[in-house]
């Protein structure tokens, strides 16, 4: 590890010199002076930073969390590109070493147009990070129980939440519809419906009440080793809805904290909450659930005995609906951020003068609160002695009763 760090440091110093010299194409070293004391101190500091970086950067792939899916996708794309280049190389140099390795590759894995003189096309195995829906990798453990309408202060948003038809744009503004796709088989879709139904997040409507071209698709994105995240694809419905984004602008991100100043006599203590399955805890009215109608028409008898069953569906063809707030709905972020903000503010947990918001001045501190949909994070600057003497966990309790000092 030490040699890697040294090598990285050497490269860093080289590229820094190269940049300072104006990116020269060639460079002649005429003389070499010994390092000054300041240079030695700087190199030592840089080496220390690198050592820390390498120490904390190592870990299992599970540490990548949500980035794992994206990086895997990048890696796949890169692998296919490598295959493409090696095939091109083998065509150019049939007696070269690369031809032996490329000959072992399966023909269907190769790039299109590699030998025809056309541009080399290298399509990834899948178009995006969207994954097939695997019901076993989706977790629905709790029934929707949060009645958000009591915490939505914006009348338009509240009206749209209760009945999304109120957020619909004039008909002449509706864009041309491209049908959404459910990324799983019919059997798996039914298995997923059953999962939803077990927690009361599923309802059915007669097929006559669901316009085919506005039905929703369904896909998943990688969350961690065990779970995926379910995303509804209501692009056709979203296309004819007016945008509502008042609270969305208050979303906080960690980079906003880069403006924070931590004096030498203080340390930062962090507390954070990440609510599980936040969106799926919202109770939505039937009119809202009907917007989440999924492609796939079934005989109503399939759902007989399910929680969603009602005798009025006997003998009818039906479509399934996701009966809670769906990730993918155009105003879902707005509803979630708005209602969570209102709830926390009413309970005195989120103080506007301490909230870190995008495109707003950073609070003076010493308490900083960040809310990003379901993630609520509180940071506090506390005296170093307090953290060291009683530990950060207890210091944060004492810190709240200390007078809130200004910088």
């Amino acid at each position, binding site marked *: 590890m030490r040699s890697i760090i040294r090598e990285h440091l050497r490269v860093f110093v080289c590229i820094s010199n190269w940049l300072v010299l104006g990116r020269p194409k060639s460079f002649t070293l005429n003389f070499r002076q010994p390092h000054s004391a300041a240079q030695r101190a700087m190199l030592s500091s840089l080496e220390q930073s690198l050592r820390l970086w390498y120490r904390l*950067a190592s870990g299992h792939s599970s540490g990548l969390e949500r980035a794992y899916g994206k990086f895997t996708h990048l890696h796949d794309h890169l692998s296919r*590109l490598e295959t493409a280049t090696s095939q091109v190389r083998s065509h150019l140099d049939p007696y070269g070493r690369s031809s032996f390795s490329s000959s072992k590759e399966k023909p269907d894995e190769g790039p299109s147009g590699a030998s025809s003189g056309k541009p080399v096309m290298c399509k990834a195995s899948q178009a995006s990070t969207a994954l097939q829906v695997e019901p076993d990798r989706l977790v629905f453990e709790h029934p929707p129980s949060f009645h958000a309408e009591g915490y939505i202060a914006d009348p338009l948003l509240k009206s749209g939440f209760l009945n999304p038809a109120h957020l619909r744009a004039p008909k002449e503004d509706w864009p041309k519809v491209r049908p959404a796709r459910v990324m799983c088989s019919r059997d798996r879709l039914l298995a997923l419906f059953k999962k939803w139904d077990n927690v009361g997040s599923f309802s059915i409507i007669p097929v006559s009440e669901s316009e085919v071209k506005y039905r929703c698709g369904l896909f998943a994105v990688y969350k961690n080793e065990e779970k995926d995240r379910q995303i509804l694809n209501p692009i056709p419905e979203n296309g004819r809805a007016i945008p509502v984004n008042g609270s969305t602008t208050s979303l906080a991100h960690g980079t906003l*904290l880069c*403006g924070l100043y931590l004096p030498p006599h203080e340390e930062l203590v*962090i*507390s954070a909450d990440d609510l599980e399955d936040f969106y799926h805890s919202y109770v939505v009215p039937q009119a809202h659930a009907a917007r989440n109608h999924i492609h796939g028409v079934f005989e109503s008898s399939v759902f007989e005995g399910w929680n969603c069953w009602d005798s009025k569906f006997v003998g009818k063809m039906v479509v399934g609906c996701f009966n809670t707030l769906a990730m993918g709905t155009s105003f879902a972020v707005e509803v979630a951020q708005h209602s969570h903000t209102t709830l926390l503010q009413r309970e005195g947990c989120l103080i506007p003068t301490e909230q870190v918001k995008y495109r707003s001045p950073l609070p003076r501190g010493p308490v900083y609160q960040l809310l990003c949909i379901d993630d609520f994070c509180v940071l506090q600057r506390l005296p170093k002695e307090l953290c060291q003497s009683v530990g950060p966990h207890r210091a944060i309790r004492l810190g709240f009763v200390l007078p809130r000092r200004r910088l």
Partner: protein
Amino acid sequence: MRGSQFGTVLGSEIDGKRGLINAPRIRTLTLCQLTLSVVRLGWATRKLLESMVGCWIFVLLFRRPLFALISELFHEGSQSKEDEAFQLSVGAKQELLLLVGFAGFVSTNLRAAPSDRLFASDASLQGAGLCSSVISRFATLELCRVAEQRGYYTRVDTSTLGAFDARTGGIFKDPDFSIPKVLHEGYLWDFCEVFRGSGILSHCHREAGLRVHQGFELQTGSTGNILECSTMLRIVGLICRRVIRCFHVAPVCCTFGTLRKPRL
């Protein structure tokens, strides 16, 4: 997470003891490995490169000045189709390598002391101006805190004509486009005495080469009597116009007793 001094929250890795904030290091290191693979290969598709640059932008948000490292990457492959493989230019490969080289230092040090100087500069291609002023650290922090949060695009004219205009003065030669003079009169005098007396102080300032106002003296009559409304307003006017650098006010050297006539 409760009362922790180290953790990953809202996409950032925070070290509350050292005062460091950066993108999760494990993700940055993985991104470095993927980036080096692309450089080694020398080929990419627009889709792959866009995705990779997108990841790097997230990492660089934690040390915004390092955005200066990338420029060509934003335009690389813009003529190619999304999935069409193209050979990376030397500049693009250099920029990818620079990102990998700097990756270990893409973090913000929250303990960095705020500067005690304020700098201002323009963004012209010719005759750039730069000035600075001493400022308190509290003021620096306040300025950083309330700084414009939302930037806007300012285009610098890099065309030949633009460069010519910048060199010769361009449209600013036209009186209609000339920069209007400041309404502020500036300092017309360096020194002014109220209750001048014999004016020794004014004389000394004049001797030193400073511009000295004639001052105000009771002996000269009503124009020197500050109890006169017109005189007082004249002094207030000079102060409000900020045309005098320094006032010296020395009340008369006599008794404030009630027997004095006229009374002070």
